[in-house]
């Protein structure tokens, strides 16, 4: 920790219909945000299998963000509701595995909310910069 040159790597799994459009809008609106994100587009946030998140952490991500449409706005009716339930449990599971809270996040960002996208990413990068690179020190079961 405390590595000054540390640049967090954040994997973003974004839904095509909302968050990905918001990211696009942020770009066309010339909004500035930290370049620490790698965005993966999925058709629905419900497609973001929890395995993807674990795989991302294993392959060097310091943080993972799953983002999709607001509840009730899912293009596939209720895909994001499955995401909601999965991420609630996944957050717990990752914590048990020793991955600090804050490294994994789920957000609802609509196609119009380019500003929210910028805020979320900026905040997450700062938070993970404070946490430092993900080095597995131990499991999280110690409380």
């Amino acid at each position, binding site marked *: 920790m405390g590595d000054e040159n540390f640049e967090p790597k954040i994997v973003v799994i974004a839904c095509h219909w909302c968050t990905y459009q918001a990211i696009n809008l942020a770009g066309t609106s010339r909004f500035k945000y930290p370049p620490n994100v790698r965005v993966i587009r999925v058709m629905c946030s419900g497609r973001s*299998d*929890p*395995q993807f*998140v*674990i*795989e991302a*952490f*294993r392959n*060097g991500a310091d943080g993972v963000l799953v983002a999709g449409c607001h*509840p009730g706005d899912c293009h596939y009716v*209720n895909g994001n*509701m*499955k995401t*909601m*339930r*999965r991420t*609630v*449990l*996944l957050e*717990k*599971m990752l914590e*048990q*595995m*020793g*991955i600090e809270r804050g490294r994994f996040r789920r957000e609802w960002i609509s196609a119009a909310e380019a500003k929210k996208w910028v805020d979320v990413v900026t905040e997450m990068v700062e938070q993970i910069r404070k946490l430092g*690179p*993900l*080095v*597995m*020190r*131990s*499991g*999280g*079961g*110690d409380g």
Partner: protein
Amino acid sequence: MPKAKVAFYWCASCGGCEEAQVDLADKLFDLVEAADIVLWPVAMDFKREDVERMPDGSIDVAIINGGIRMSEHEEMVKLLRRKSKLVVAYGSCAHMGGIPALANAYTKESIFKYAYEEAPTVNNPEGRRPEVRASFDGVELELPAFLDYLKPLDEVVEVDYYIPGCPPTPEITWEAISSILSGKLPPKGHVFGSDRALCYECPLNETKPEKISLDTIKRPHQIVLDPNKCYLTQGVLCMGPVTRGGCKALCIKGNMPCTGCFGPVDGVSYQGAKALSFFSSIINIDDENTFRKLVEELGVDPLGWFAKYCLGKGTIYRKKEER
């Protein structure tokens, strides 16, 4: 034709795998007819030096159960890998880490602290902990070290085949051993058992509706299960849909939902995540706060519920070694 040489070895295991091997019963005679057993710590007296004396590659197949927890396990499996043509991971622990891998959620320090100081039955006023070197009556002893994490076998040596289960059934054990001994080798990395989910061979599958939607989930001890109706529809978590078949649904026939010991089907890297995902899909709650409340009330412990046998495979400890 000379007899094949077979070695059995145990690492961090409970002894259930040995039990399963002995449960081969009369098939054991077929085994000794076809093969010489050159190492079998549970039943026969061989020493490590005996194995060291064998030429490299002289053992035809080494069947290893248990996870890798101690430095001794690591040394022995590396030795056996060198001496053997084929290495088979036998049972959940060797395959995916098994139940002992749940300790990966704790640090080595906190495991020692509990086991040697805090556990209610411990009487250890000097607070002694296991040491690698100790001297006793002027004799220097060297003991195996406790590693930081429990690893499945294939994290330590190359593994050719896997026999899943906690423990594997005698049928699947014999199917695997006889196919290997007869030279009918499946492709490398093959996991014995079915490549479809357990539900396909479950006798209760007929009663499973197209869509399962539950408002809550119950633990098996909280209800009297109807043995003729899919356990999931009765509101009890059964890992059948996310678990490899091949056990012939033994637990379910014994009135117990599946806990997932055969591991994931091909193509799934982490069974725990898949199970968590499946559980999220059958619970029918769309309000986040209500769902969080339910999870808290039920005391859902995602690792214990969904990753009971596979944490060794899913542990993200690799990062520590890489950086």
